[in-house]
């Protein structure tokens, strides 16, 4: 499942919704991304996105993860709008029988989300506003999954 919204999420409640009553899950991994203040340099972060394409990309990424790993459940929640330091930005949950699949699928989802989901961060601080620049490390992290897939084929 995927969700794009302004509201905060409750990690415990999201896990419960995915797993309650199930006895076939052995491993649940969650990733939560939060706003850092970078020592006071950031007072606010605004997330813009491309409605429609965002949901399509998140669904595509989630489907890819489910085709590569045997997942019992998965969830991506991404917030938009203006957030304060310490607030949640993104949540990924993966559930599987074994920990390797759950860990790898969660990392895969985050790596792909960082390089393909159309979100843009703008930071506000004492020195004004500025758009966050993409990190080449994120492209590298995503490329390693393609390499692994190609190597396996």
């Amino acid at each position, binding site marked *: 499942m995927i969700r794009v919204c302004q509201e905060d999420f409750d990690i415990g409640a999201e896990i419960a919704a995915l797993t309650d009553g199930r006895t076939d899950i052995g491993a649940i991994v969650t990733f939560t991304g939060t706003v850092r203040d970078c020592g006071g340099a950031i007072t606010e972060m605004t997330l813009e996105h491309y409605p429609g394409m965002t949901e399509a990309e998140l669904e595509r990424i989630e489907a890819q993860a489910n085709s590569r790993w045997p997942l019992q459940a998965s969830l991506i929640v991404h917030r938009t709008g203006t957030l304060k330091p310490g607030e949640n930005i993104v949540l990924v949950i993966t559930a599987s029988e074994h920990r390797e699949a759950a860990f790898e699928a969660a990392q895969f989802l985050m790596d792909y989300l960082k*390089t393909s989901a159309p*979100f843009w961060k703008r930071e506000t601080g004492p020195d004004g506003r500025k*758009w966050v620049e*993409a990190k080449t490390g994120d492209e590298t992290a995503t490329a390693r999954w393609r390499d692994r897939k190609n190597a396996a084929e």
Partner: protein
Amino acid sequence: MRLLYFAWVKEKTGVAAEDVTLPDSVATVAELISWLKTRGPEFANAFEQSDVIRTAIDQAHVQHDARIGEAREIAFFPPVTGG
């Protein structure tokens, strides 16, 4: 055809969305970007470093050599930074 601009591309062009009729000579994304740059200093500035600009046709990522074809919606934006 509908054109969308996001993040600093939107701020630089001063436009979030617009409907345009493309000249017949524009067949690819690269050609569309070249044409957009002729539409005024804001567009010339926004698309100056065109290799940084990312493009989606009908909400799917494409390269600059992609053909526009029957696209209904083309979006321009910086590399994504969510997550």
